[in-house]
């Protein structure tokens, strides 16, 4: 009893911390033009490589310092959050819809449907994901929608595998057989009886996938395959920061911290939500 309470309390704190960071980042992204202290694209070579606010030589208004072209780092991070969140939501949702649907069908119907879908997943997963993404973007052309499509096309298998396994487990339960005896149709049983029991896993995966999408977008930006180089993206800033690591470490470190916090928050938020959603765990 006590153990349950402690772990529930722990998951609650995690949920709030992770959710808090995500909400903060999301609000910053939405209201970027209002909250960003500077124009993220404005260059000023008089202000190049200013250090963050607590170090000597910092300028007021440039809280996290500037990069080698004198652009304000905090403002660039805030505008970068826009792209990160758009990619996270769009790509993760698309991957989730495709993967969960196929996983549900494979897990519930089994037989030929399962064999075909599972083989496709096996083949898909044999491609190294990052190379696959780079290849896809190279073929589709750079741009926001290409990045989103690439992530969805690569990562639907994550949803498919997990949801297939969960659905299989649920389908063996007696309540599914009972529904069969009562005379429900198979698709009705899949949607009404089985689906609600795999929703907690879908939610957790969805949140995790958003984190992964943020990373993949950063990787693609890093190799210059995301959107145009003018728009600030977290991966792009990291790539620039790498070049000036010895003169201005902050240009590399702050976007890294932002990225890590965001990805971590997505995964923890998903876990917390799953615990909340699941009537058995609740």
């Amino acid at each position: 009893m006590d153990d349950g309470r402690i772990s529930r309390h722990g998951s609650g704190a995690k949920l709030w911390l992770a959710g808090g960071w995500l909400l903060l980042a999301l609000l910053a992204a939405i209201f970027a033009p209002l909250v960003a202290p500077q124009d993220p694209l404005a260059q000023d070579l008089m202000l190049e490589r200013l250090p963050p606010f607590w170090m000597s030589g910092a300028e007021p208004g440039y809280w996290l310092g500037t990069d080698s072209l004198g652009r304000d780092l905090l403002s660039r991070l805030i505008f970068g959050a826009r792209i990160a969140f758009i990619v996270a939501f769009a790509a993760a949702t698309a991957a989730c819809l495709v993967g969960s649907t196929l996983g549900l069908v494979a897990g519930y119907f089994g037989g030929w449907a399962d064999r075909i879908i599972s083989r496709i997943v096996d083949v898909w997963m044999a491609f190294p994901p990052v190379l696959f993404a780079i290849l896809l973007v190279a073929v589709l052309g750079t741009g926001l929608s290409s990045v989103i499509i690439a992530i969805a096309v690569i990562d639907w298998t994550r949803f498919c595998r997990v949801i297939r396994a969960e659905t299989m487990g649920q389908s063996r339960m007696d309540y599914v057989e009972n529904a069969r005896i009562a005379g429900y149709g198979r698709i009705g049983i899949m949607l009404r009886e089985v689906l609600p029991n795999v929703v907690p896993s879908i939610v957790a995966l969805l949140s995790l996938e958003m984190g992964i999408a943020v990373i993949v977008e950063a990787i693609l930006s890093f190799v210059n395959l995301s959107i145009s180089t003018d728009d600030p993206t977290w991966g792009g800033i990291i790539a620039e920061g790498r070049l000036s690591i010895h003169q201005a470490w902050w240009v590399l470190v702050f976007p890294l911290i932002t990225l890590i916090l965001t990805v971590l928050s997505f995964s923890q938020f998903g876990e917390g939500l799953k615990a909340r959603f699941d009537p058995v765990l609740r």
Partner: protein
Amino acid sequence: MSACLDIRDLSAVLPNGQRVLRSVSLAVQPGEVRALVGESGAGKTMIGKAVLGVLPSSVRIVEGDMLLEGEDLGKLQPKARRTLIGARTALIPQDPLTALNPSRRIGPQMTDRLVRILGWSGEKADQRIRQLLDEVQIRDPDRVLKNYPHELSGGMRQRVLIAAAFAAEPRLIVADEPTTALDVTVQKQILRLIAQLQREHGTAILFVTHDLGVVAKISQKVSVLYAGKVVEEAETAALFAAPQHPYTRALMAATPRYTDPFASLKPVDETVLAGLAAEIASADQAWGRPHG
């Protein structure tokens, strides 16, 4: 009047050709409780699943007929068969833990079937469910209907399942070891409840169990099953008074008694098992010849 359930020469095989049901025949008359007894793996549950149309896809029925109130299930289209089975039968399952959908509240779960399958109005279904919950002696139906399954004890869940099974007024209920997963103290209450509801509703029950004590309490007729073959069939009283088949006698000898718990715990005798094996082999041979 035709039998409620009439199974004739039912044989089923696994993909490797091994027979799991060996020309099983049994009839359940309206309002009668027929016990199906045997050790695990004897095919008791398989017969229940065959009747309800939920056999695992690996098991194939190769011979025999099943008549539900005179209608041949094998001759119906799959959809018509599902509808018929849904309207006339119900299952009281073995494990009340997994037989209720964990993510749905008890109330909608119970009324759903009446509304969707039988086309009742929501109000009528709700009244019916409350009446049944009262019959299974659930005192606070309002709370139970709002609960999720995991919020109820095993005994309560089994009561809910019994109420759900009787709610649609089926003609035949398959009770698949309904007390096995429960505490001994709860077992007795549940058994009494099933017997009581069975009498009041006049429902025929195919009662699958491995427990001869349960057989004696609840059933009018018994079929003893071994390796998918009915080795003895009799009125319950007659069976206990004078078991004919050596296997039945051995089963009875293997039932522990309170007076002398250790002396009476005898495993089934080697010679009996050898006799059974010979019986099964000859049955398979006789069956295999015309089928090639």
